[in-house]
């Protein structure tokens, strides 16, 4: 048995919230990272996974974070908790390095990528001049940046998100660290690029024989690359073991729930099992009950979009105008009580279509027939009565609720605008009913949005749409910002509402598994064009278009791929 490279023993960290209250972020966490091993730290937001990585790096805020005295973090034979700030700083970037979630905000926009790599080399390896230049190009080549000699002089904004993340990795491995901490390195990236980056990390890890501590909320992505998995929840380790053990025979209910509450591509249970279902032991029964999806030509059509085009213009030079075609000739029919999934990578035009349909953008060309009328040809005033019938749930529940309104005000505002309900008492009664419908306590009525978690906020946003009793609900990446277990709850809620009210959904997402679960038919978009439009089961089983195949290949499949 070799000695572990990093050994965390009984790590306890608490944060001071105010004078009297403290919050225990970590309640005794112990795990090891062996040399030449990839360990995945998996958990949802608030599980303490990021706090763990910050503690290892000595980056916890000194003012309010307190590490318990019996905690131990041993790295390479040194106790990290006993080192001075200066010593830890020398270690960071040299022996331990880190890559972050947002490559765009982690790179300094005013320096070239080459300069930023050389800065690391100068700081830790004392490498300057031509030698550093040469090394920077070598590193860029190693992380798979094409024509690295040229790109070394690029600024971060000249590169795509995937390339930026590659540059971050190049910086991280510049000093040949023994341990690389990757904090959600692929969460902000498209699914095809996520796969490339995961492959790159795995490849570099093998080639260099370093250890990787991979932090993520998504259990599925670590299946391919991790040797060991540590599952955390609420500052505690729920389960740890080899990847095979955890994936094929999970012991803890929470791990089981995490594994199965994420919709899979090959099955579609009626409701997604959530953590409570596992605790209550009814998950197995739920999994067997399948839901049939798909549309037939006989289904009544609620909305028909014909030849929708949307151009954006940007100013170029003094008088020039540059046209960008965000959506090109998009046509589809939305059927009553059914869900149309819209899939594509960022920039494919799926959100543009959603926003244009409900006239948050003006269409450049095209028609949308709703209730026998072309809603694109209406004036703003004529459209108002239709507005309440087509509603939208945005991606970011933290941004889509007015922070100065109480939930009650948020829910009652649409009723006031559209004259729903008689007077305030009637409206507040309806608001209370809706709150209980979306599973929120009555008390919420008097609270402000910031007092809720992401999933609860998304419920509020959904409830706001329901006040107007819409026919069509557009979900624009509505569950993408949520943790998987919360995502499952919100998906279940949407499903229940569709069953109850016969809502039609346009479900926009980059997550193919979620779209598969929710949709009757799926439209795949790329560069503003619809490349494939099929019943969802057909599309996932037998994709015709190259692009669709590539998308489906990139879905992280957990252990299935290994």
């Amino acid at each position, binding site marked *: 048995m070799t000695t572990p490279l990093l050994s965390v023993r009984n790590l306890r960290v608490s944060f001071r919230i105010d004078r009297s209250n403290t919050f225990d972020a970590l309640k005794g966490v112990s795990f090891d990272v062996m040399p030449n091993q990839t360990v995945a730290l998996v958990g949802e937001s608030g599980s303490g996974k990021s706090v763990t990585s910050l503690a290892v790096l000595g980056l916890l805020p000194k003012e309010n974070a307190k590490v318990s005295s019996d905690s131990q973090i041993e790295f390479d034979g040194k106790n990290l908790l006993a080192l001075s700030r200066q010593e830890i700083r020398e270690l960071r970037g040299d022996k331990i390095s880190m890559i972050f979630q947002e490559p765009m905000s982690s790179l300094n926009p005013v320096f070239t990528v080459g300069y930023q790599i050389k800065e690391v080399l100068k700081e830790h390896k004392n490498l300057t001049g031509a030698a550093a230049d040469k090394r920077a190009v070598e590193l860029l080549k190693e992380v798979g940046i094409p024509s690295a000699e040229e790109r070394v002089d690029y600024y971060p904004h000249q590169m795509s998100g995937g390339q930026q993340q590659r540059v971050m990795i190049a910086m991280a491995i510049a000093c040949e660290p023994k341990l690389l901490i990757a904090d959600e390195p692929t969460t902000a990236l498209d699914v095809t690029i996520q796969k490339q980056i995961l492959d790159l990390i795995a490849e570099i890890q093998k080639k260099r024989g370093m250890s990787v501590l991979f932090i993520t909320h998504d259990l599925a992505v670590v299946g391919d690359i991790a040797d060991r998995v540590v599952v955390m929840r609420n500052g505690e380790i729920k389960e740890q073991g080899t990847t095979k053990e955890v994936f094929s025979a999970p012991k803890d209910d929470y791990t089981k729930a995490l594994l199965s509450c994420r919709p899979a591509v090959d099955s579609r249970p009626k409701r997604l099992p959530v953590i409570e279902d596992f605790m209550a032991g009814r998950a197995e029964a739920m999994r067997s009950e399948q839901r049939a999806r798909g549309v037939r030509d006989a289904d009544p059509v609620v909305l028909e979009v014909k030849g929708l085009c949307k151009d954006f213009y940007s100013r170029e030079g003094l008088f020039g105008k540059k046209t960008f075609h965000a959506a090109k000739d998009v046509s589809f029919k939305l059927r009553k009580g059914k869900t149309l999934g819209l899939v594509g990578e960022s920039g494919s035009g799926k959100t543009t279509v959603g926003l244009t349909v*409900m006239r*948050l953008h003006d269409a450049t060309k095209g028609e949308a027939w709703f209730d026998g009328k072309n809603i694109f040809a209406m004036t703003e005033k004529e459209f*108002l009565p239709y*507005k*309440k019938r087509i*509603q*939208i749930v*945005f*991606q*970011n529940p933290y*941004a*889509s*609720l*007015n*922070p*100065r309104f*109480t939930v*009650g*005000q948020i829910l*009652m*505002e*649409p009723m006031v*605008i*559209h004259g729903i309900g008689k*007077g*305030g*008492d009637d*409206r*507040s009664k309806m608001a209370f009913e809706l709150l209980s419908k979306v599973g929120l306590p009555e*008390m919420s*009525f*008097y*609270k*402000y949005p*910031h*007092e809720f978690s992401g999933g609860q906020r998304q419920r509020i*946003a959904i409830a*706001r*749409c329901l006040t*107007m009793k819409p026919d069509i609900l557009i979900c624009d990446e509505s569950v993408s910002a949520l943790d998987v277990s919360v995502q499952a709850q919100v998906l279940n809620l949407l499903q229940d509402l569709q069953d109850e009210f016969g809502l039609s959904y346009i479900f926009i997402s980059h997550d193919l598994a979620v779209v598969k679960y929710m949709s009757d038919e799926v439209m795949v978009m790329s560069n503003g064009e619809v490349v494939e439009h099929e019943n969802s089961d057909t599309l996932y089983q037998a994709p015709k278009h190259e692009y669709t195949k590539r998308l489906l290949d990139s879905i992280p499949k957990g252990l299935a791929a290994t």
Partner: protein
Amino acid sequence: MTTAVNTASIGIERSPGLWSLAWKRLLRDKIAIVSMVIVIAFLLLALASAVGLVAGGWNNEIAKNYAPPTWFKGSTTEEDLSKSNKSAAAGPSLDTGLSRPEFVNDRDPLRDTITELKQQLGQSTSGGADEIKIVDPLADVIAELKKKLGRTGDGDANEVEAEKLSSLAFGADKWGRSVFDKVVQGSETSITVGFAAALVATLIGAFLGALAGYYGGKTDDFLNWFYSIFNSIPYILLVLAIAAVLNKKGILTVVLILGLTGWASIFRVVRAEYMKHKARDYVRAANAIGASHARRMFVHIFPNISHVILVQLSLYVVIFIKSEVILSYLGFGVGVDTVSWGSMLNEAQNELILGYWWQLGAATLFMAILVTAFSLFTDSLRDALDPKLK
């Protein structure tokens, strides 16, 4: 809101909003409390003076002219005092100070010229009443002014003089009016002008800024163009032009001058905030539920940027109090029948050479205390309102 009934019946404690949280934070700040107490004291003082509780009789000549401050009396030599009294007594009368009495004497620099002119016109040099009229063309005006101010003619001067005090808490001015009363009265003027002008400028600037930032495009271009033109004219020149157009001295004029020239900075701030907020999801969501433009602008965005406006408003108060002082000092401020810190400084300019510094001292002291306290309060307010809400 009609839900108030519900709240009461259920007995649920409402969650604290932005303002109550900010208020709590403000109360935790010691500097904020001290500065707030000072500002409130000034406000009360101004209010008391407005309703006539304090300094109502600032215009009464209750002391000897240039009577020194009480606490300063001892250090002033008797010689000085008697000299000043003598020089005062040498003049024809205290009251007629305005009427250029010296000009009757040999000192009138125009005397020779006038004599010459008169000779040319064939008039006698000893014209009596005629002569005086020519020498002092303002005599009528002054007589009228005196009547308006309720001052009696020279006849009463002796009586009053008998009761006059030889020193006052903050000293007396040229006419023997209490400097303390004047400075209190001046506080009222300055604070009124500061707050009113800040309100005018904020209303104009915030409204135009909201329009420009929210609508963007042509509206924004036009308002920016308008704002740039406004900003391209030198400030003092603009003030002079507006003063000339309004052509009337008084508090209202000063408020209008400051308000009309000062809206530019809040315009920029509010415009930027609206540009930022209009693209936020919650505003798009408001659009999606059918909220009108006006509703999105003032019901949705406005509460989210109101703290910025409030901070800017309180910055304006400080700036405008100072501006009023400068304007009055330059003579574009309040008229002669009102007193402000600026007009006191203006008067003090001449007195200072003679060594009568107390008017200057009092006005400066009061202004410095209020402006410093208000600035500190503004800083604390900004800290308290800094939207670091989760």
